[in-house]
């Protein structure tokens, strides 16, 4: 069973203009799925649909269905869905409501009626997971942007959801902060088997971790699949080519110029290793023919 299934799902906030139109998408258990697309493509609405805020919080009109862990989100309550899905929205600061770091994590668990001992243990566990151990008594207002983001994730992780939905989690972070955050998320994905659905416009940040990419345009799925299939498809579409990570722009440009085929590069090291070998082979070929 997939973690999240969008079954021909369409949605309109005002009842007429579709923000999402006929979405067919499966997020497998334990997968790292990245959603990209131009502004207004429906990325945030997709996240809101996965956590049940669409349609429960916003109303509107819909067709088709979204199933989370087999539960139809329109039929279940937001509370039922929250048992399976943890959500960190773009404005993560609005999710932080308490004075201190430990209280923030405890708040989520207290609302579920957990015992004090369990809460105390979970606080320690999740803060260690996100790298905030030792900051239990720190005031939330005194944290940096990256730490606040980690805290919002920790508060969500405390409930041990099977799925984590994040809407542009690195939008307010510097490049180093974004890199750290995605390394953290990838680690959680690997270690806990949690499925991740992440909206990210800068695909270079997630290239090393994503195992599925979904590109939305005008509320529809423009392309989806493994990164090595999706990125060339994006490269061929004028409106989406600029979103292809620079590393893959180089790869695809070289492939076109040289009529060669390179491996699916995940990072600069893989690219450098293959290009180094390729250049050495070309030199040897050139020397022989000379």
């Amino acid at each position, binding site marked *: 069973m997939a973690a999240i299934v969008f079954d021909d799902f369409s949605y309109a906030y005002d009842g007429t203009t579709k923000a999402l139109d006929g979405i067919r998408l499966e997020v497998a258990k334990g997968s790292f799925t990245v959603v990209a697309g131009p502004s207004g493509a429906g990325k*945030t609405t997709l996240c809101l649909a996965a956590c049940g805020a669409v349609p429960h919080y916003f*109303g509107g*009109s819909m067709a088709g269905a979204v199933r989370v862990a087999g539960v139809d989100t329109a039929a279940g309550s937001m509370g039922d869905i929250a048992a399976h899905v943890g959500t960190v929205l773009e*404005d993560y600061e609005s999710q932080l409501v308490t004075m201190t770091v430990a209280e923030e994590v405890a708040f989520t668990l207290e609302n579920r009626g957990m015992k004090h001992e369990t809460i105390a243990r979970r606080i320690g566990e999740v803060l260690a997971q996100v790298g905030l151990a030792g900051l239990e008594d720190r005031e939330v207002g005194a944290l940096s942007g990256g730490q606040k983001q980690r805290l919002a994730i920790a508060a969500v992780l405390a409930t041990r959801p099977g799925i984590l939905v994040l809407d542009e989690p690195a939008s307010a972070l510097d490049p180093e902060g974004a890199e750290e955050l995605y390394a953290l998320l990838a680690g959680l994905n690997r270690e806990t088997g949690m499925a991740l659905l992440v909206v990210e416009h800068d695909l270079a940040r997630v290239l090393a971790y994503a195992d599925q990419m979904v590109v939305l345009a005008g509320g529809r799925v423009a392309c989806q699949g493994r990164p090595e299939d999706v990125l060339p498809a994006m490269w061929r579409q004028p409106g989406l080519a600029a979103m292809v990570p620079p590393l893959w722009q180089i790869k695809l440009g070289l492939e076109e110029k040289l009529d060669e085929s390179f491996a699916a590069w995940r990072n600069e090291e893989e690219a450098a290793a293959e290009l180094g070998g390729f250049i050495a082979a070309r030199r040897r070929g050139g020397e022989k023919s000379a």
Partner: protein
Amino acid sequence: METRENQELVKMEKTGGKTRGVAVTALLLAIGVILRLVSPSIAGITPNWLIAMYCLAILLVRPGLKQSAGIGLVAGVVCMVTSKAIFPYANLLSEPVGAVACALVVSLTDRVKIFGLTLQPAVSTFIGTLVSGFVFITVTKIVMSVPLQVYLYGMLPVVLTVGAVNCAVAQVLYYPAAKLFAGRLAAAPKEEQA
């Protein structure tokens, strides 16, 4: 399975987010009570903070007419127990009617803008205050047999003045209150709503 063309959309009712609306309304009413208790009168006129606050709550939460009447009733009870008027029980009728009037104006003027600026807070609060004030003084006049001269030249001008003051208060407070209480969640997918 093929994707269906011209899918028929089914309207969905909001089922979540009610707690937020209740919390925002309760908080605004509480602020209104405190301001009502501590505000001094200027030239005999005191802005009716509770009316301004429940009008703001109606603008931010967009409740239905029945819910608006409920908000008005709560405000009416609070007004009654804190009132220095000669017939405080009139608040139990005037505030629900004022709240419903405000909600009606809000629903009718949702898209009215002048130079891109919505004057909905000012207009709805002014009318809400006038209706509430008019009902209050009329009930008081009937029950307490207040002379017509006092009603016309003593009470009605006060209602008009308080309406004008409330109108300014609501328009000024609306934007910061909307930023604080409406939350980013509702605003997040605006570009996708377009």
